[in-house]
């Protein structure tokens, strides 16, 4: 089928619900309304109110009750309407979802997938455009996934729904309807913890994910660069092997993400490169990301987000051009 990311995730959810009778969806406006982005459209009619739960407002209650459902043998898939609102449920994610397995020595498990839209570039109201992955990546016990295309979105979500771990599934709103792709009708998995090699090259490694995959690919295409492009896909746990192998091959690295640079995922990747491959580096690692202040209002967005010019400059710097 031809699908954009919204359709791919909707299809994945339907197949998951059919496969696993203990899977339940819950969240604000996900039932009758089909979700504010229509990701859960039609699922209420197919599976009924006990499995597609329109909840009262309250992010902590949604995530916390989903933790309870998971502890009691269900496989909840809560949706938080926007990542900017998820901080209200942060305590439940950090103190319980991520910790329950280790604090009970695996006696209790929290199999759940928390879905939430992330990232900007679509001129939304404030608190609707954050890229908070680094905030969560510091928390052991969580799996964090962010697809950059419909195929990966479906396969990663299906894989996430079959895991025993709490998975944070970050969906870039900008990519929801940006492009379509041919994806299989049936269920398939995309491995979690494994980065995707989008393009093979020898001169430079560009490591990215989410909304930045497309601009990075476009620049490489335009400039006809001999670049290795890695789409990280799983932010935690990170696929160090793929990254280090590429760095050892090219010796030159640019890391690009939409989230702010300070204390970000790029910093972690750069540190691991320094640890494992510093002698293979032919130039300092350069990172591209957003500036270190809160996400601006839509009028200023274009000055804030990483763009092709910023990415291109970083590439020039590393290539010594």
């Amino acid at each position, binding site marked *: 089928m031809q699908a954009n990311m919204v359709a791919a995730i909707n299809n994945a959810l339907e197949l998951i619900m059919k496969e696993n009778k203990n899977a339940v969806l819950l969240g604000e406006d996900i039932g009758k309304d089909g979700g504010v982005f229509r990701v859960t459209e039609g699922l209420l009619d197919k599976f009924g109110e006990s499995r597609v739960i329109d909840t*009262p407002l309250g992010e*902590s209650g949604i995530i*916390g*009750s989903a933790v309870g459902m998971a*502890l009691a043998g269900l496989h909840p898939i809560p949706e938080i309407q926007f990542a900017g609102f998820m901080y209200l449920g942060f305590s439940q994610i950090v103190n319980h979802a991520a910790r329950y397995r*280790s604090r*009970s020595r695996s006696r209790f498990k929290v199999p759940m997938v928390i879905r939430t839209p992330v990232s900007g570039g679509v001129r939304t109201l404030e608190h609707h455009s954050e890229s908070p992955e680094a905030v969560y990546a510091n928390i052991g*016990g969580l799996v964090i996934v962010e697809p950059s295309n419909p195929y990966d979105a479906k396969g990663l979500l299906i894989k996430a729904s079959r895991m025993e771990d709490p998975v944070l599934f970050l969906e870039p709103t900008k990519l929801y309807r940006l492009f379509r792709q041919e994806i299989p009708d049936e269920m398939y998995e995309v491995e979690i913890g494994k980065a995707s090699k989008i393009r093979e090259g020898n001169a430079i490694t560009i490591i990215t994910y989410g909304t930045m995959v497309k601009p990075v690919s476009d620049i490489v295409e335009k400039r006809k660069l001999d670049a290795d492009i890695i789409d990280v896909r799983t932010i935690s746990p990170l696929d160090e092997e793929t990254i280090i192998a590429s760095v050892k091959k090219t010796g030159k690295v640019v890391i690009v993400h939409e989230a702010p640079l300070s204390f970000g995922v790029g910093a972690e990747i750069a540190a691991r490169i320094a640890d494992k491959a510093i002698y293979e580096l032919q130039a300092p690692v350069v990172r591209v990301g957003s500036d270190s202040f809160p996400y601006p209002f839509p009028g200023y967005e274009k000055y804030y987000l990483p763009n092709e010019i910023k990415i291109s400059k970083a590439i020039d710097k590393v290539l010594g051009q």
Partner: protein
Amino acid sequence: MVLTRAYDNKILSLQRQGRTATFAPGFGEEAAQVGSASAMRPNDIFVPAFRQSGVYLTRGFPMDLYLLYWIGYEEGNVVPENVRGMPMAVPVSTQMPHAAGIAYAQKYKGSDSAVVAYVGDGGTSEGDFAEALNLAGVWKAPLVAIIQNNQWAISMPRKKQSAAETLAQKAFAAGINGVQVDGNDVVAVYKATREAISNARDGPTLIECVTYRMGMHTTSDDPTKYRSDEETAAWAKKDPILRVKAYLEGKGLLSDAIDKEIEEGNSKIIDSWVEKAESFKPDPTSMFTNVYSFMPEILSAELEESKASDFWQG
């Protein structure tokens, strides 16, 4: 109740000797705990906060594990399969949404089990408390939420915790039943919990047990700093154990001889729990192998590095 008190006393003395980390005893709240837990049916599920030794004991939780938690090992949270309950929750009131979710799952699976959750008076001010009751109310989930109103949230007295006349009335905002009982009367607590469990199929009940924290918040706390001796003395007269003893003595069911016999028996049981807990051999590897359902590369590497360190070599 007597065994709970004796065990709390024992753990307190162990803590003072440096044999456990911080501990939260439940002195004075034995009727609220043992009364409510006794009212649970075998298939009901308890969701505790962190001051529920009486609940754990009554529900058949291995009490050496209870001590192991306070000594400082996660293995104390390995609730046996046949004990239907959850580990302690330290972040105040965060266990309440879990209880709502567990209750929803019972309904979803067509199970008859009710969920009995515990929270303190301070916990009722938290957002999670309100959200949990709201969700359970909308879902008509089989939840019995028990407030152990022991009058103090560390140094904050009940009156400063909320302008509400009772804590039970917080039920009304969520559209569920609210009941206030004398939390130092074990029979009253039992009866209220029993009723709430029988009604759980029709929806949740909030029960406020009015009781008193006769001891400290935890072993790190000195209550003399913020409350008067007169107050503690007045509540000591209402000690739930004294009350139940007086009742049984009045009925001719308890004598000094029986009391002494119980005390001696309890002391032996407690010694065996302590011995078992203190003989636990920790395995630091378990910290690394229980984080995910799989072993991420980063944890394998960290484990290997730790194992190679001088510290781990002992």
